[in-house]
């Protein structure tokens, strides 16, 4: 049994193809998991305040989405500020949290988003 030149070429191509496929398959999943997905959307799509003057502004917000799986433990390094120790606190009659003397002459209301 003899090998023609054509057969040798076919074997060579087969070896090269096998090597390429092996290299691709050996990429670790960690490399893929490290990719961060970034989506770009307008405030109209992502902002609940669509009836606000701001919503008509041609501003584009960038919304980062983490690929970390839900339930990933948080680092335990964050200390909770104890700024409020010893100050009266509770809920107003309407159910909003307050800090300070409930009978204080001045009420300062902070309307804020946590973001």
């Amino acid at each position: 049994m003899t090998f023609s030149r054509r057969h040798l070429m076919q074997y060579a191509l087969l070896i090269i193809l096998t090597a390429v496929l092996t290299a691709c398959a050996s990429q670790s999943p960690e490399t893929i998991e490290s990719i961060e997905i970034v989506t770009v959307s307008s405030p109209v799509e992502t902002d609940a305040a669509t009836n606000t003057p701001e919503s008509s502004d041609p501003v584009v917000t960038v919304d980062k989405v983490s690929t970390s799986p839900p339930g990933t433990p948080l680092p335990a390094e964050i200390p909770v500020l104890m700024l409020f120790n010893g100050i009266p606190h509770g809920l107003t009659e309407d159910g909003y949290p307050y800090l300070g003397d409930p009978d204080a002459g001045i009420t300062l209301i902070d309307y804020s988003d946590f973001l």
Partner: protein
Amino acid sequence: MLAIEPQIVEQYVRTGKVRLVFRDVLNHRERSERASEAAACSAQQGFFWEMHTLLFENQDRVWGTSNDGLLELMVGFGSQVEGLDQEAYRKCIQERSTLQKLRASDVEQRSRGIYAQPIFEINAQRLFGLQSFETMSAYIEEELK
């Protein structure tokens, strides 16, 4: 107003001159709602201000988490609040038992022109946007006269 909050608290709240009230503004849909629910569920146990601080200090973490991961992120924040009944807290945010009230409050506030944030009301005075301590202090001192 986290940047100037320590000064406001020490100078006016701790001294009994000012009562500070927090009201949620929901401008970023799921993220805002999840964060506010965490605060409201903590408030049910008397730990609102601890959670409030955690949330403001970890805004980038909330932004960096997908909607599917927000619940567990908030559970993780709860675990950092000493004294919080974790089981009751988790149940509260899982069942979303505070969400309806938060949404209703947000709607009511918008009807009064409160849709951007932050906005402050010092008795009848309304201030829009971030304020320096000096500005805030000036308004408070005026009210104290």
